[in-house]
C-alpha cells in the first residue's frame, strides 16, 4: 500500500523568509511524487512532480522540491515566501510498480505567510 504523511497541519512563515513544507512517503516500489496547491474555494492546482532524474525539481510560482530516497521524503521549498503563497498544500504519491494510476494524498498542510 502507498501512503503519504504531512506531519505539520500548519506552517507559519514571514514574507520574504524561506519556507519548507514537509512530506514523507511510503511505497513498496518506486514513487512518482507530486505537490498540489489549493486556494480557498478553488480546485487543486498542480505545482510540480518528481518522476525520475534530478532529485531537485522546480515547479510553478518559484517552488521547488527535493526528492530524498534514503529518507523517503519530498519536501516542498521556496527561497522567499509571498503572502499570496498562503494556501493549502497537498503532497501525493503513486507507486509506479503497482500499476495503480490514481494518486494517494497526504492530509494537507496549511501555509500561512504573514506580511
Amino acid at each position, binding site marked *: 500500500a502507498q501512503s503519504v504523511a504531512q506531519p505539520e497541519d500548519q506552517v507559519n512563515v514571514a514574507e520574504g523568509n524561506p519556507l519548507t513544507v514537509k512530506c514523507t512517503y511510503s511505497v513498496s516500489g518506486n514513487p*512518482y511524487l*507530486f505537490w*498540489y496547491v489549493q486556494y480557498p*474555494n*478553488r*480546485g*487543486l*492546482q*498542480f505545482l510540480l*512532480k518528481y*518522476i*525520475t532524474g534530478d532529485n531537485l525539481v522546480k515547479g510553478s510560482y518559484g517552488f521547488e522540491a527535493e526528492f530524498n530516497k534514503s529518507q523517503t521524503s519530498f519536501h516542498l521549498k521556496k527561497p522567499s515566501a509571498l503572502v499570496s503563497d498562503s494556501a493549502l498544500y*497537498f503532497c*501525493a504519491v*503513486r507507486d509506479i510498480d503497482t500499476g495503480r*494510476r*490514481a*494518486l*494517494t*494524498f*497526504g*492530509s*494537507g498542510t496549511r501555509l500561512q505567510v504573514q506580511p
Partner: protein
Amino acid sequence: SAVISQKPSRDICQRGTSLTIQCQVDSQVTMMFWYRQQPGQSLTLIATANQGSEATYESGFVIDKFPISRPNLTFSTLTVSNMSPEDSSIYLCSDFVASGGAETQYFGPGTRLLVL
C-alpha cells in the same frame, strides 16, 4: 494539460435526494477519477471512471451510492444518491495525462455540495 470543467460548481440539496455532477475534459484522456474532499480533510479516491465499462470503486464506496458513467473519453458523471448530511463535501473530477513518461493528474474546480 487537459482543461477540466465541472457542473454544478456548488449546490444545496435536501437529504434523500440525488445529485448528478458532470465532468467535461477538453481533450481525450486516458483515465478519469472522482475524488471526495470532506470538510477540512484530504482527498479520498471514490472510483476510477472507465470508458465503456463499469467504474472501479475504492474500498468503502459502492455503485449504488455513487453511480458513475463515462460514455466517451472526454466526459463523465458522478451521482450522489440518497444523500445525507455526511455527503456534504467537495467532489473533484480528475484526469490522467500520460505524455512521454510525464504522467500527471489534473483536477477540475470541484463541486461543493451541502446536504441539509
